């Protein structure tokens, strides 16, 4: 750029100089005499000057053309420089993206959250739920997955509870088997392990009997083997999960066992393990039938162990806009004469649910569930109907009404209306 400026400066100065010189020359002529001879010389000198000016104008014109031509390539050079810079930048970005793609490990945050309102007949309605369940995934190649779900929720008094829903380190042993170790959701049945997350559950509540410390085991601590069962080239599929765990603890009240605590304790007071598993079979696409069984021993703290058995069956079927599923589960504790609660006890529950996708992202749901506890005050039958609107497949607003039938005067008896927004990510 500055080179060009210098050149044009030189040209300009030389032009001005020659004008100046010519003018000086003219001025130095004695103009006092005005005879014809003088007039003629003056005239011819003026003509000569005119010619010179014309030549100079021409020169100037040419010079400016040259200058213009020179400007062009210099600008594009700058552009090229900038382009080169950009290309370098892009290449660097592409490389880093590539690096990211090829790392051995991946960190991924998933999970879900839900907020809700509920009102039971005869009581005040309240915004009763705010729950956040982040799920952390740390994956190493396709060999290892660490999965952990926390459960943070606000309690009625405004304080927050933090729970570890599960934490397992999963080692992929081969194409058909993974070892899962840690605290896991009970692999028995389908509701607890597959349906309970709020963005998956089509109703704002769990079926009666499938909540915490009811008929269905919730979690356990131990090790699990799970995977697919080879089925050759057929379209059928089958899967299994088998585990050994600490098992549950029995909570007495008076001469009864109040509940079986299946939250996945990290101790084994009775020293006796529980063994169990589930086999799932898909005879056709979009249908699964599952059978679950677990057996072992469990105890009231400081007592000796007694038998503990679980039996379950579940099915799920999707057909066009219809989603049907159902499940039965029972937990049984054997008699023990030396116990404060010597009898044998059985909790059982089942549900059947149908959901139908309506036009415009609406969905209708109905579920019937029946919970039989050894304690009459806990027995409950429930019909829940609901209408959902799907903002997205994983963002669901739900409104439901629960017709409850239980022991009169207990909370199991009153009907309830619920609303919920659930978001899975």
């Amino acid at each position, binding site marked *: 750029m500055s080179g060009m400026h210098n050149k044009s400066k030189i040209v300009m100065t030389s032009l001005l100089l020659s004008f100046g010189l010519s003018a000086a020359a003219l001025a130095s002529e004695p103009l006092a005499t005005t005879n014809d001879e003088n007039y003629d010389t003056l005239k011819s000198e003026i003509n000569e000057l005119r010619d010179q000016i014309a030549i100079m104008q021409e020169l100037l014109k040419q010079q400016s053309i040259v200058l213009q031509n020179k400007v062009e390539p210099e600008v594009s050079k700058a552009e090229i420089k900038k382009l080169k810079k950009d290309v370098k930048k892009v290449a660097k970005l592409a490389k880093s993206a590539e690096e990211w793609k090829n790392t051995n490990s991946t960190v*991924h945050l998933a999970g879900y959250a839900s907020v809700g309102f509920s009102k039971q007949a005869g009581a005040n309605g309240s915004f009763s739920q705010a729950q956040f369940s982040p*799920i952390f*995934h740390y994956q190493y190649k396709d060999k290892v997955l660490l999965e952990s779900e926390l459960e943070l929720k606000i309690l009625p008094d405004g304080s927050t509870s933090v729970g570890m829903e599960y934490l397992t380190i999963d080692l992929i*042993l081969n194409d058909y088997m993974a070892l899962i170790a840690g605290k896991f959701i009970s692999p028995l049945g389908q509701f607890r392990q597959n349906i309970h997350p709020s963005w*998956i559950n089509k109703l704002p509540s769990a079926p009666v009997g499938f909540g915490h410390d009811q008929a269905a085991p919730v979690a356990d601590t131990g090790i699990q083997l799970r995977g*697919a069962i080879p089925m050759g080239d057929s379209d059928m599929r089958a899967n299994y999960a088998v585990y050994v765990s600490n098992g549950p603890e029995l909570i007495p009240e008076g001469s009864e066992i109040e509940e079986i605590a299946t939250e996945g304790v990290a101790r084994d007071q009775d020293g006796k393990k529980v063994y169990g598993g589930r086999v799932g079979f898909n005879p056709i696409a979009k249908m699964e039938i599952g059978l679950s069984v677990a057996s072992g021993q469990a105890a009231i703290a400081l007592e000796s162990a007694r*038998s503990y058995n679980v039996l379950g069956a579940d099915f799920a079927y999707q057909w066009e806009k219809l989603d049907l599923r159902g499940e039965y589960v029972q937990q049984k504790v054997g008699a023990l004469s030396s116990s404060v609660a010597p009898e044998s006890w059985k909790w059982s529950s089942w549900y059947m649910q149908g959901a139908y996708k309506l036009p415009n992202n609406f969905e209708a749901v109905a579920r019937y569930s029946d919970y039989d506890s050894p304690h009459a005050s806990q027995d409950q039958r429930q019909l829940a109907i609901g209408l959902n609107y799907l903002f997205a497949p*994983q963002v669901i607003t739900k409104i439901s009404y629960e017709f409850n039938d239980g022991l009169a005067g207990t909370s199991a008896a009153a009907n309830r209306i619920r609303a919920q927004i659930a978001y899975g990510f």
Partner: protein
Amino acid sequence: MRIYKIAYFAIALTALAIIATSPGTAMAKDVKPDAKNNAEVVKDTKGDFVRGAKLWANRCSACHNMRDPKDLTDSEWEATLMHMRIRAGLSGQDTRDILVFLQKTN
């Protein structure tokens, strides 16, 4: 409690059968397909788009609403599918097939 014993026995037997019949570890990234392997084997350790699309349609709406492949990036799908593989009891091959489908359509 005979029913438990029978069910137990069945589960134990299934588990044993699986351990006995499982091919050795076959993980996509670890397998270095050598020239002698036939095309089928090489293809199998990778994942097949068409099979993946079909399996995705058949398997991925069994428990929850179908998720849009565009929800997640390639590497997020890797972690998520490993999660689903364990949750749903998918075979390694089915997982690789579905992964290829999701990563090509996201």
